[in-house]
């Protein structure tokens, strides 16, 4: 009675808190819809699609948006042919569909998965790699608002494979971006796998599909790439790869790779130079969970979670496996902090996909946004606490690597079949926005309103000796009270590509704000103090 009275007096009078992220999809004019071609054959492919990218394809200084669709399946739902959508940022929060004008139609993908945008030929314009089955597509940006399919000439079709996430990075430090494609499993529409749960057809477990090796393509600089997977040591590492991020985890210069794999052990590929990678995941204790079980790794991201200047990793996994956090102590093994960080507690019920370490509130520490959604419509018949459609998770970092869940707004109280997640500041206000894809639904564009009023400092790097996108750069910003370390990574999240700019949230830190950059070329550049609350374009000094 007392409680009821209290609620009557005060509960109802509480004003609704403004959302931290506001759903601006409709207001932005984004009307595309994802279609996975869901079939009675329950091809597992259908459950893993839905890519998204933030990129400034027309170099007008405003981030545009690309969505990657699934496709038709032999006995799947029919309708309009699934197609990608490229939305040009028209400013004022509005986007215009320019897919046809940009030359992305007619569609070159058969069944689409993800996107990786980067300027692989250093001409100043973002190119696009789209992964899919049974091949991927490389679109060269012509610099006039259109793209051309150069897959055959480039030799990056990844033919016969089910490609998932992809990452651009310069593994051999020659100033040209190379391409890593995370391949999932042997697959054919002619070979459906039949599984049942409680008498109903369901997607078979991933273990019904034999894992495949991922591929590494070296950029030769003449528009062509060479498949160097064998010499790099990848062909001996088959497994169901879904996510990838490229970052120099041990600070030795060359960029390494973390590959999240689904019921296959994760890979931590240390780049030892000479074009060779060593898988150190077992020694790093990131291959398996603490009991030696390979989790269902989907998305992966890297960043300094605990403020020690070293990159840590987070991997999104299946429900009751927990989304994992691996802290980097500067040596092997890593420290699994999944439980200590409270990620286990927050993620227990969810199947995670897109995941991004992002300082959403610009207080200076990296928070975590994860998009979730199950595969099995009847999951409730297995576990009463797990649902088919699931809400996104927004977790706030206390600065020491412990996370608490925050109410981000109505989207975070709604349920989705979330897959790809990309982050980018589409209105240049210094607050990083988000876009994600939900299976067979319209996408969701989220405007960040959490960072309003907080100080920030944005940086856009342009490599000259290094690759122009500066993927692999390490940035250290020193404020009056601490040092913040960030990296420009390749890949990250799931099926996604992000804003290449770095935003440092400054919280209440006073200046001066001094920035040191270690470029992918290995050169270090120290800058004079920079003013906050704006983006700074910094070009790599030539010797």
């Amino acid at each position, binding site marked *: 009675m007392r409680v009821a009275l209290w609620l009557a007096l005060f509960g109802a009078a509480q004003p609704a808190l403004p959302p931290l992220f506001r759903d601006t999809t409709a207001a932005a004019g984004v009307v595309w819809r994802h279609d996975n071609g869901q079939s009675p054959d329950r091809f597992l492919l259908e459950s893993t699609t839905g890519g998204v990218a933030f990129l400034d394809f027309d170099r007008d200084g405003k981030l545009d948006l690309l969505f990657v669709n699934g496709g038709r399946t032999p006995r799947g739902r029919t309708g309009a042919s699934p197609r990608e959508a490229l939305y040009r940022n028209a400013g004022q929060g509005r986007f215009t569909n320019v897919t046809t004008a940009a030359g992305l139609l007619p569609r070159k993908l058969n069944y689409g998965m993800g996107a990786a945008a980067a300027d692989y030929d250093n001409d100043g314009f973002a190119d696009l790699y789209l992964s899919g089955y049974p091949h991927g597509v490389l679109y060269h940006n012509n610099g006039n608002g259109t793209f051309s399919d150069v897959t055959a000439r480039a030799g990056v079709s990844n033919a016969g494979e089910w490609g998932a996430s992809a990452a651009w990075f310069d593994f051999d430090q020659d100033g040209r971006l190379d391409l890593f494609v995370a391949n999932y499993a042997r697959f054919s529409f002619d070979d459906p796998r039949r599984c049942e749960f409680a008498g109903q057809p369901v997607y078979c477990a991933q273990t019904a599909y034999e894992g495949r090796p991922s591929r590494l393509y070296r950029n030769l600089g003449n528009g062509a790439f060479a498949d160097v997977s064998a010499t790099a040591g990848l062909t001996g590492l088959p497994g169901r790869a879904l996510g990838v991020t490229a970052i120099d985890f041990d600070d030795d210069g060359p960029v390494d790779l973390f590959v999240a794999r689904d019921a296959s052990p994760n890979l931590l590929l240390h780049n030892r130079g000479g074009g060779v990678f060593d898988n150190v995941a077992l020694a790093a204790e990131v291959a398996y969970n*603490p*009991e*030696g079980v390979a989790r269902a790794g989907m998305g992966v991201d890297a960043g300094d979670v605990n403020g020690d200047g070293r990159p840590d990793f987070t991997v999104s996994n299946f429900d009751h496996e927990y989304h994992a956090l691996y802290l980097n102590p500067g040596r092997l*093994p890593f420290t699994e902090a999944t439980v200590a960080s409270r990620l286990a507690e927050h993620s227990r019920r969810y199947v995670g996909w897109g995941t991004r370490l992002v300082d959403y509130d610009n207080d200076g520490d990296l928070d975590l946004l994860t998009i979730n959604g199950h595969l099995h419509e009847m999951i409730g018949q297995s*576990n009463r606490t797990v649902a088919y459609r699931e809400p996104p998770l927004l977790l706030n970092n206390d600065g020491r690597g412990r996370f608490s869940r925050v109410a981000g707004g109505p989207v975070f109280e709604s349920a989705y079949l979330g897959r790809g997640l990309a982050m980018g500041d589409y209105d240049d206000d210094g607050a990083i926005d988000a876009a994600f894809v939900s299976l067979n639904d319209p996408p969701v564009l989220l405007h960040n309103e959490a960072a309003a009023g907080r100080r920030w400092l944005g940086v856009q790097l342009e490599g000259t000796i290094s690759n122009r996108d500066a993927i692999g750069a390490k940035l250290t910003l020193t404020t009056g009270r601490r040092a913040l370390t960030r990296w420009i990574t390749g890949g990250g999240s799931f099926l996604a590509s992000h804003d290449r700019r770095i935003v440092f949230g400054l919280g209440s830190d006073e200046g001066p704000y001094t920035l040191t950059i270690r470029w992918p070329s290995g050169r270090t550049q120290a800058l004079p103090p920079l003013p906050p609350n704006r983006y700074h374009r910094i070009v790599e000094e030539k010797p």
Partner: protein
Amino acid sequence: MTAGIFLLALALVAEPPAAIESAKRAYAAAQAGRWEEAATALREAARLAPANPLYRTGLGGILEKQGRREEAVAEFTAALRLDPANRQLRDRVGALALDTGAELARAGRFRAGLKLAREHAALFPDSPAAFQMLGLFLLRTHENPASAEAYQRALQLDPDSADASVGLGIAQSEAGLTAEAARTFTAGLQRFPRDAMHRQAYGVLLVKLAETGDGEAARQARPMLLSALALNESLAESHYQLGLLELAAGDAPGALASLERAARHGLDDSRRHYATARALRRLGRQAEAEAALASFRRRKAAEEAAPR
């Protein structure tokens, strides 16, 4: 049922002559050890005289003799449906179905086991063993809430069954009904205070709850596992779980000792080898850690190759 009784019984039943002829052929074939021919002839007899349980019984017997237990159970079950008052047949079906279920569980054939268990529970609605078997196979096929219901029924039928109580708690836990599971285990501890399995299963649940932020569970987990071992020192899983807790707490020597005890009590799965490698690595015993990892890889490969 012996062949002689079988033929005598036939003589007492009004049958289509063709069915009796088939049965005679079956008898002759069985006498000569031609089991397949006998089975074919009995199938024909059963087709011609579908209301006669004896042909299905005989067929079941031949199939059982051939080691085709699942088919034998199906035939005996069909016979029992035709002759539900036959106590001898009933006992035989009951025993064979439970044996066959255990065999299917050992072979990892959980879907086949579930089919058998469903039919068995329908046939024996008052058998706690039937519902325990059903609970087991529902659990193994991830129909966890239904598994909990089956174990609940088993416990209603036999409130003295500690196994049914443990099964219920585990099924509730897997179904996400953790509060219910905790209540089941708590009640089980009172009813079966000397049952170490209750304490071990509850300890495992407490470990899981502790991982997801339950402070009280974190305090209770270790004492619960230790209490299980005080009752039965040979519970390898309890030693293993303690080893994991000690590893997480940074007590590598303690973890290694617990894991070695788990090994001594027969735990030889990939989990134990992996945890041992982690403990050895933290103790700076790199060569032994590498050897443990090699064992882990071998066990893992064997487990992944095993039927599911």
